[in-house]
């Protein structure tokens, strides 16, 4: 049976609501999982979540727009978050930033056209003793040198390509 994207999203959200409950306090965990699975919290997702929790969609939008790790626009498969706060700044984040832009071909705040990378600034990620530091999704890289930037990206690309391949396989089988 053909299920539309929206149906699938709705089913996913229903499963999350089943797990986390209908109370407003379930909102954050639900949003976080939707964000992780879909790389965004779409307007439709916000409305379904609002409906299930008995709150207004604009309230969900208010929450999504408040937190840096939730987004209403699609993010890349890999979100590179470079710390720009003082210790990493002093440790040379500017050169890392430039190299990231050069190697990814995008600027901060942008997502690459293939949907693989989003490049963002982060405020202090708690790696001040080992700056410059960055996060790629959940993984932390410390004492990053401009020369390492390419390696980090290449590693992600390898995995991304692999997964894309698997995804295609899955669709055809």
């Amino acid at each position, binding site marked *: 049976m053909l299920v539309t994207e929206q149906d699938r999203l709705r089913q996913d959200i229903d499963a999350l609501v089943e797990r986390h409950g209908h109370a407003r306090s379930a909102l954050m965990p639900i949003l976080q999982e939707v964000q992780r699975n879909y790389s965004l919290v779409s307007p439709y997702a916000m409305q379904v979540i609002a409906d299930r929790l008995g*709150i*207004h969609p*604009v309230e969900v939008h*208010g929450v999504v727009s408040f937190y840096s790790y939730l987004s209403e626009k699609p993010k890349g498969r890999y979100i590179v978050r470079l710390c720009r706060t003082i210790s990493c700044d002093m440790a040379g984040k500017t050169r890392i930033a430039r190299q990231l832009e050069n190697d990814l071909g995008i600027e901060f705040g942008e997502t690459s056209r293939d949907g693989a990378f989003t490049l963002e600034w982060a405020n202090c990620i708690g790696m001040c003793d080992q700056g410059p530091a960055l996060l790629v999704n959940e993984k932390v890289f410390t004492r990053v040198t401009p020369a390492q930037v390419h390696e980090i990206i290449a590693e992600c690309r390898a995995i991304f390509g692999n997964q894309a391949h698997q995804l295609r396989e899955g669709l055809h089988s």
Partner: protein
Amino acid sequence: MVDKNEDPLTVRTPRSMQAPAGQAATAMPDAIGGTIRAVIDGQTIKVPVGTTILEAAKELGIRIPTLCHHPDLCIAGVCRICTVEVEGQRTLQAACTYPITAPIKVSTSTRTVRQARRHVIDLLLSRHYGECYSCARSNNCELQALAKEYGVEFFRFGQKEHRDHEIEDSSYSVVRDMDKCVLCRRCVRTCIDLQEVGVLEAIGRGDQTAIGTFMNKPLADVVCINCGQCINRCPTGALREKDHIEEIWEAIDDPAKHVVIQTAPSPRAGIGETYGLAPGRALTFEMNTALRRAGFDKVFDTNFTADLTIIEEGTELILRLYNALVKKDPKVALPQLTSCSPGWVKFIEHFYPEYLPNVSSAKSPQQMFGALIKTFYAEKNGIDPKDIVSVSLMPCTAKKFECNRPEMADSGYKDVDFGVTTRELGKMLQQAGIDLPNVPKSEFDDPFGGATGSGVIFGATGGVMEAALRSVVEFITGLKVEDLYEHADIVPVRGFDGVKYLEIKIPDAVGPVPDIIKHLVPDWNWAKGATLKFAVAHGTANAKKIMEDIKAGGKFSECHFIEVMGCPGGCIGGGGQPIPTSPEIRAARARAIYSEDAAYAIRKSHENPAVLKIYEEFLTDGPCGHKSHHLLHTHYTARGKYIA
């Protein structure tokens, strides 16, 4: 008989905005029972535990300036204008949020406090697009007033000189000018907490925080019900109604146009406020003169169609009851819900579309009048309806949306061309140089001149119900309402309780069926001994309570007729009424309305001779007949709450 358990306005308070104990101050003291000594600026006062510093200071006659605080809303404590010094506290405290729970010493006007307030005002001014001369709220702006009060002589931290946002005027009713927003969040609390509509919320974080709609869509594309309550509580010109003043002047100045205006009851009780009068003085008959002087060709009384609405809607109710109880028609939807409040109608279209069959098909008085002016009136006076410009004076911003509904053109033309608010008319009359409070009085124009007290009380919550009961009870029982309620004042449905409930037992002896509906109902035997159940709600948050109860099969699902008004207080608290608003102001306007009702010789809609006449002359097949269905009834649109 009245359910007193309902809290008048407050419904659900998000914890973020919850008052610590300030909000609870009204409820707490009795529970705790204690009082506490507070010394404010050297004056001593004993206050109940939990009273806020702001409230205590007010008792002492000490003014503490406020901005985000509003008497209708839960406490936010975000603007930080009301900060004061509390002995023993390292930082300044917001007087509006700080509950007095132990003896306390407060200074409200030290050098530090004054400096902090000045800074807050300076910061707000630096983000506010202060085009005061051309602003709708000039001289009625709380930011402007604060700047004056604190002697702002220059823009310490600069002034916003360029717009960052386009004015958002997609809605027929509400215009948003975000360059004037000071982020007090009154609109958010109004929309989410007071009205439970949920259109406006703070979006973003830090310096990017702004008040927005869902996905920042235009108001016309979201679930806004056009109630305009956000406008009433906006301290600046960031929210205002869509203004039609120029178009109306143009029509008046065009000799080819016949410009008529109908005036609803609530603006009469409010318009004096636009001239600086204290709330509660009705200027009904002065306004008639003023409108003629301003150039309107005819001035009609919307009360006429209010009475007509009662007959149509009352007949519809009787028919529903008859069909349900006697004919056992399972398709009959009960309770019947009123339809005169366009904010409420859009609310139900969005949030409870499955209950649209319950909504009375009778148009609102504004739209009934509009349809009659371009048919009956035009015919009678030999005027081509295309030359008529029909204006309605309403306390309401949602009426602007209502008159633009595509289905509201049964006369063959747009039934009502412009809905203007009390505020807009106040401006028009001032532009015309009319000293409203001091002009002589004059009557309404015929042929719709005769009105009753029942039409007048439509303006207050419970008014439609009272008017309907005055007629329906007499119809069925054959008794006089006066025999049941002194002076025909059905007091249980009056007042500002959020939800009111009333049962009336029909006696075993019933009256004859009145002539006007004889062709519809043969007799009243079926109603003998029945207990009719009624409810009244005002403000859509209270309406939501009722609808949720109906959905759950609760007590309101057994009601036969429910009046719902979209705005807190009913139309006297409408989104088009003068600013400010507060429970006291609405109560004063309501008093004006009820005393006008008491002064009428005829106080029941079915005794209105003009109404009876129109059924004889024009709507000859009677209430809910073919012609009335064509002109006076309508249908609704299931909109749902999902936005594409």
